[in-house]
């Protein structure tokens, strides 16, 4: 039976989860390629790894680290999962997804933790594909563990606990268990987290060499098994690191990341894109555009409206809306940001007294969402937003602009060449006053 959206307000309310990324086979997935104007995004992404999707030619470089930018909540993870379907294949990649939110404490994350998690997920994925590696492939990693970690004086008590626990065993299963213990410790064990990081930092060159060796062996096995030519890591959740951690991870520790001789995509927050000191270290010119509702000259962009409508009507049956006017207004005031539209939908569900969302309910929801922005916007913010809206120009990336982008008060479209204030903000008195002051 085909998927049916909930047709009861309370059920809609119950099922709205902002943080949820859709799985590749989720029936609620909507193809937003044309809507975003991102027809070339997958193509460009593949090209960065030297894969030409038009003719299938693949000439992989030794390593490539690509940042994938986008506003928080616009569907980067969902899109990447769909891209993965295209990138996976015998003549292409074996995609290994590493969800750092799930595996690590993403609010306190360092490159060492990430590398451990990558190793763990690689071994798990190989196991899933019945790839067995010879003992030699694992020998360097096992050696590093035994010489540097398990024999570390500072970690004696911790490793003692490991030994006292379940027998980790050898081979890939043994290493998976060992990595799992360590990544779990990075997530929860405050006592040993820093000690573990110190050990990795002090022996990083050995660890990364062992990891790279394992990766090469794994890729050779994948080719032999006719599964893929290379491994592609998708590191998800790195777009949600704290401000300082984001800079540490992508700027200060970029050299460590670049030491990994592999193919890696990292999700990254849009504001990072405009940090001056990011330039040159990582491949940082690819982003997932917002779904646009108009083009730069304010002409209606029909595919954007259609995609947003589909997204909405997969979450709430059409019968729940009094008419198309309500649906259109929700889309309009989302600015093409799916999560903001879901936020408005949730507010409507909270407000609706009957099983029907009418125009007054939608308008009240818009007011409520606008009031969330009113809490932190300052007069100078409004002034800047009005200038951007009126001049239709990209007028720089100073701190105020970056902060507005980060907090979704300012939305960026297409190739980042044009921006608009969040539509709900335009109804605020601060914005109106700024318009009056300028005109």
């Amino acid at each position, binding site marked *: 039976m085909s998927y049916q959206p909930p047709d009861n307000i*309370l059920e809609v*309310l119950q099922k709205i989860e902002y*943080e949820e990324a859709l799985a590749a086979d989720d029936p609620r997935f909507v193809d937003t390629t044309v809507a975003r104007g991102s027809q070339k995004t997958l193509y460009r992404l593949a090209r960065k790894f030297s894969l030409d999707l038009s003719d299938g030619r693949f000439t992989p470089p030794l390593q490539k680290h690509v940042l994938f930018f986008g506003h928080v909540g616009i569907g980067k993870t969902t899109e990447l999962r769909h891209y993965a379907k295209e990138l996976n294949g015998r003549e292409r990649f074996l995609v290994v997804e590493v969800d750092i939110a799930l595996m690590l404490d993403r609010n306190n994350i360092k490159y060492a933790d990430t590398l451990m998690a990558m190793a763990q997920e690689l071994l798990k994925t190989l196991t899933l594909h019945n790839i067995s590696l010879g003992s030699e492939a694992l020998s360097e990693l096992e050696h590093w563990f035994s010489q540097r970690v398990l024999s570390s004086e500072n970690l004696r008590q911790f490793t003692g606990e490991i030994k006292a626990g379940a027998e980790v065993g050898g081979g890939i299963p043994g290493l998976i268990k060992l990595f799992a213990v360590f990544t779990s410790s990075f997530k929860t064990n405050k006592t040993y987290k820093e000690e573990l990081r110190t050990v990795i930092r002090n022996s990083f060159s050995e660890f990364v060499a062992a990891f790279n060796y394992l990766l090469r062996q794994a890729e050779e096995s994948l080719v032999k098994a006719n599964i893929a030519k290379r491994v592609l890591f998708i590191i998800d959740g790195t777009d949600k690191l*704290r401000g300082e951690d984001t800079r540490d991870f992508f700027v200060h520790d970029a050299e460590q990341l670049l030491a990994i001789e592999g193919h890696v995509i990292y999700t990254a927050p849009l504001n990072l894109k405009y940090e001056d000191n990011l330039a040159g270290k990582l491949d940082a010119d690819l982003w997932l555009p917002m779904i646009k509702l108009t083009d730069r000259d304010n002409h209606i962009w029909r595919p954007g409206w259609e995609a947003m409508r589909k997204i909405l009507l997969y979450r709430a049956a059409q019968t729940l809306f009094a008419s198309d006017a309500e649906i259109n207004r929700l889309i309009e005031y989302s600015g093409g940001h799916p999560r903001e539209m879901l936020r408005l939908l949730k507010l409507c*569900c909270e407000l609706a007294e009957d099983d029907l969302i009418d125009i007054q309910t939608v308008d009240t929801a818009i007011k409520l969402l606008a*009031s969330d922005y009113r809490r*932190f916007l300052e007069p100078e913010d409004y002034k800047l937003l009005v200038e951007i809206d009126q001049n239709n120009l990209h007028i720089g990336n100073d701190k105020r602009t970056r902060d507005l982008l980060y907090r979704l008060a300012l939305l960026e479209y297409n190739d980042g060449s044009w921006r608009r204030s969040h539509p709900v903000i335009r109804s605020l008195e601060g914005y109106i006053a700024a318009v009056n002051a300028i005109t």
Partner: protein
Amino acid sequence: MKTADVFRFDHRRHLAATAVRPEHHADFNRLVKVLRYGSRFQFLLAECNDDLYRDLLIAKLNDVLAEEGMQAARLNVSRQTYSNFAALETEMRRLAADHQALHIVDQHHWFDAEQLEAFNIRREAVAQVVPIRLIFWLATDTIKLLALQATDLWTWRGGVFSFATQGHMEISEPPQFMNDIDNRTQAQRSKRIAELHSYLNMQPPLPDDLILPLFDELAGLLKSLGDFDEALRIRREDALPRYRKMGDEHAVATSLANIADILTRQGKYEEALNIQKEELSIHQKFNDHSALARCLGNIATNYSYLKLFDFAQSMFQKQVLPIFQELKDDRSIAVTQGKIAQILCEKGQLTEALQVLQKDVLPIFRKLSDINSVAITYGQIADIFCAQGQFSEAMHIRQEQELPVYRKLGDAHLVAITQGDIAAILQATGQYAEAAHILEDEAIPALLKIGDERSMAILRTRLEEIRQAMELPRTEEPA
């Protein structure tokens, strides 16, 4: 979801909402709904700057949740209770085991930049180990700090519910306004609002004479729901200009009176006065004495709210009273004299106030056989006796003139309030045990049943003072 269950739930939440300020009905109803029907884990922000009012809101929410079979716990977070976020998280985790909702009440700005950052860091972990509905009761500035300093956490919010009030809720009585009687439920009123909107948006637009009653009704409904801003906008921008255009000056005067009434409720007394002066000029033009006196009375009331007591008193005495006397409108005379007495009390002229009440107000209400107003006037007299330290006289009035009347009228609310007043006298005269007994066993349970959370909070505070005076251990109160 069974229709009957949903109906019962809606009924409960709307009933509970009547105890909160009208302007917060919508947010209260939303919050209850999302707590009941939203997902298992939720991170919700409730904005409230008034401790007393916040406690009332929590009590009301818990009542509805309990009826829905959901248990809520409360954590008061201060520097005395939790040294850091880790300690708070441990306690949240413990309570998550047998509760479905948790109120985390920020006291004295415990959630500063440091604690918010700590929470931000742990937010994923909190969602996993405390998988219940979390309602963070924060002050306005703390929510702003959260949005700016812990943006990821802010992005993560399930909703913001505003119960902000201007300043702290006064324990002493603020100006009280009687709402127009409207027996429709909030849901019915909201539905009617939607209907009115659909009429107002008809194309081609309705002519002014047909559209104006719709605007008036809509503004009245919005006011009854606490949306003063929108009600004011409609009266000012949609209705008033049309009445002016039609040249209907009586309607213009009524419209101005309605605008001034909203402004007064919003505490914008000076702005209200400006409007009332225009209204006054219309009544003067038509020589409408009754309307003129009412308008002057409203002007004087606004002056009294501005604490211009002498001027207000003079207006009541020299301008308002003579008109009502001329019109032989006894009830309005008594009401005006009551207002004069109130001003005298504010000025500390208690003896004069007492005289007005005893000589000018009571006899009229007695003559009109308005026993309710008689009892209320006695209550004002008893208040003065209390202020003068004449507790036995005050007690006599409370017990002989007020309580029996309210009981006879079946007004449980006024009975409970009067019992609270009696307890205050007992407290003032050191009869703590008896005072505590009346509050615990009679007044507070009665107010709880009625749902007057505000008065209940006042009495609970009084009970707490009495307990402290008695130095007795705290006993279990009605929840």
